[in-house]
């Protein structure tokens, strides 16, 4: 009787533990399924035209997304120019200069910003940049994405700077370096792998963002010159093409999906490799 009960408990234990393994397996398989499906569908759809040609008029087959690739590049560049300095320098303030009061306000604001749905960031950029200039533009899109980069860069910079051993700090100060010299020539270089990782991860995250671009950068079927024109981007193109009724647009959506996913995953893997080769650092 009691041995039967024990056998039953052991069976339950093994069964449930096996089930957790199945859960983990299913979750990871989803990634490979996504990758495989995109590689297959995107790989058969992609061609040289995709990278070099502009979109054809509606209904005509062929053409590519050259303008969207350039547009995404432009907007990501501008977004980094805005998000990285604010996040990086703000992070230095939090880690090195701040008192208790101001720091907790900044941290709270950053965490709050990090949780805001991306579509709401889009509304904000619309009312602050699009409405006053009465124009969808690359600026507006970059503003939205730049805001999304700030909290990630800020909090990681702070974490990594704080993880620099105190001895390094004291060594520099003992040699008579001023505080900012210590920061600029000792502490930041010591933490730079971590900070690079954070910046790359922030970039990867906003590279795939679609919702905040819908009514800021909008979209464009032609090349957009300068920065104040509506600008096509890869994620928005994927969305527009995927929900369209044309087969050839579906094909191009798959190709664009493969390019975008490849880009995002490569940046991610690169970032994590940089980090793992460096010193032991806390996880954010």
């Amino acid at each position, binding site marked *: 009787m009691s041995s039967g009960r024990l056998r039953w408990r052991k069976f339950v234990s093994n069964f449930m533990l096996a089930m957790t393994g199945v859960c983990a397996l299913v979750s*990871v398989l989803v990634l490979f399924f996504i990758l495989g499906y995109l590689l297959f569908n995107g790989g058969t759809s992609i061609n040289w035209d995709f990278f070099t040609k502009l979109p054809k008029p509606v209904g005509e087959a062929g053409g590519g997304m050259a303008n969207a690739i350039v547009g995404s590049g432009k907007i990501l560049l501008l977004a980094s120019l805005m998000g990285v300095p604010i996040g990086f320098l703000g992070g230095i303030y939090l880690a090195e200069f701040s008192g208790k009061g101001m720091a907790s306000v900044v941290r709270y604001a950053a965490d709050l910003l990090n949780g805001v749905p991306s579509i*709401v960031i889009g*509304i904000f950029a619309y009312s602050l940049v699009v409405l006053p200039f009465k124009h969808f533009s690359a600026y507006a899109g970059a503003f939205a994405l730049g805001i999304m980069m700030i909290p990630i860069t800020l909090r990681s910079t702070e974490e990594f700077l704080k993880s620099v051993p105190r001895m390094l700090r004291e060594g520099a100060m003992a040699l008579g370096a*001023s505080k900012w010299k210590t920061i600029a020539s000792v502490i930041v270089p010591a933490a730079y792998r971590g900070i690079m990782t954070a910046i790359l991860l922030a970039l990867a995250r906003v590279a795939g963002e679609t919702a905040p671009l819908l009514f800021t950068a909008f979209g464009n079927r032609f090349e957009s010159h300068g920065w104040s024109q509506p600008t096509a981007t890869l994620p928005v193109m994927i969305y527009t093409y995927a929900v369209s009724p044309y087969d050839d647009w579906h094909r191009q959506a798959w190709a664009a999906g493969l390019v975008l*996913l490849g880009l995002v995953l490569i940046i991610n893997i690169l970032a994590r490799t940089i980090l793992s080769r460096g010193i032991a650092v806390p996880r954010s």
Partner: protein
Amino acid sequence: VATTTTALKGAGPVTGSRSFFSRLRDGDEIARLVTLLFAATVVLITAALVWELWVNSALPRQKFGFHFFVTSVWDPIVDQFGALPFIYGTMVTSAVALLIAVPLGIGAAIFLAELAPPRVSDTLQFFIDLLAAVPSVIYGLLGVFIVVPVMRTVIYPALNKPFGYLPIFKGPSYGVGFMTAGIVLAIMVIPYIISVSREVLLSVPRDQREAALALGSTRWESTWKVVVPFAKTGIMGSIFLALARALGETMAVTMVIGNTPKIAASLFAPGYSIAAVIANEFTEATGDLYLQSLIALGLVLFLLTFILNGLARILIVVTTQKGSEVGG
């Protein structure tokens, strides 16, 4: 450690006694002010975001007041805006997503934290992190071309034939709808539940497990009756985080929910969500009241995620601290 701290603090008064200008020349003061400026920008942007949402949603707040949330007529032509269908859609899709994602995510987290050897666990976690990095529009793309057809040809017949008398499985299926959106959302939030729950489970002190095993419990009993209850609040936190993420998700939902502002009991019926209606109608909104009604929906979304994220953070911090206190 204590002596080094006082040594560093001791440098303070020396710096302080120098004149402001000498510190300025040194650059310390400039560096402090410059970095402070950038840090303050973050606060400014966040404040401006809340301010813009509030000010730009004044019209519907004055005209409809609380009725905005409980009426279901959304008709730009007669200037009637009621948000109920969108709120309903957001709630239903998120609920479906959590029903699927929570058991699967927690199961996987238990496997990663309790069962898998560290090397395997870290490798799998790496893939889970990559899964979290997949852009939402990619999920939408796969949703449109895979989940929607599978829904129509496989899942709908399988559920409608035996359970069609239940209101939630009644009626025809177009492939798009609440359930399709819920399934896609579930896949999107699983990585968040796994990552956070795994961290929380790993922070449970080792002696809790050993004590349970020593008392003669099986491995599963020690996990389910000791470790998981210990980490309960943190796991709740991960669920709140996932919920906040599901509520605010735009693209994937917009592409598969059907975009029909109707409240239907059937999970197979097409619907609409808050984020989806903003994405679809924002650029076409004519007239201030229409646009501001959409911004008011944005404000609702902001407040919901704000509350959920805050709760999640508290729960996670409480659990990991408990772990380090008991274990430390």
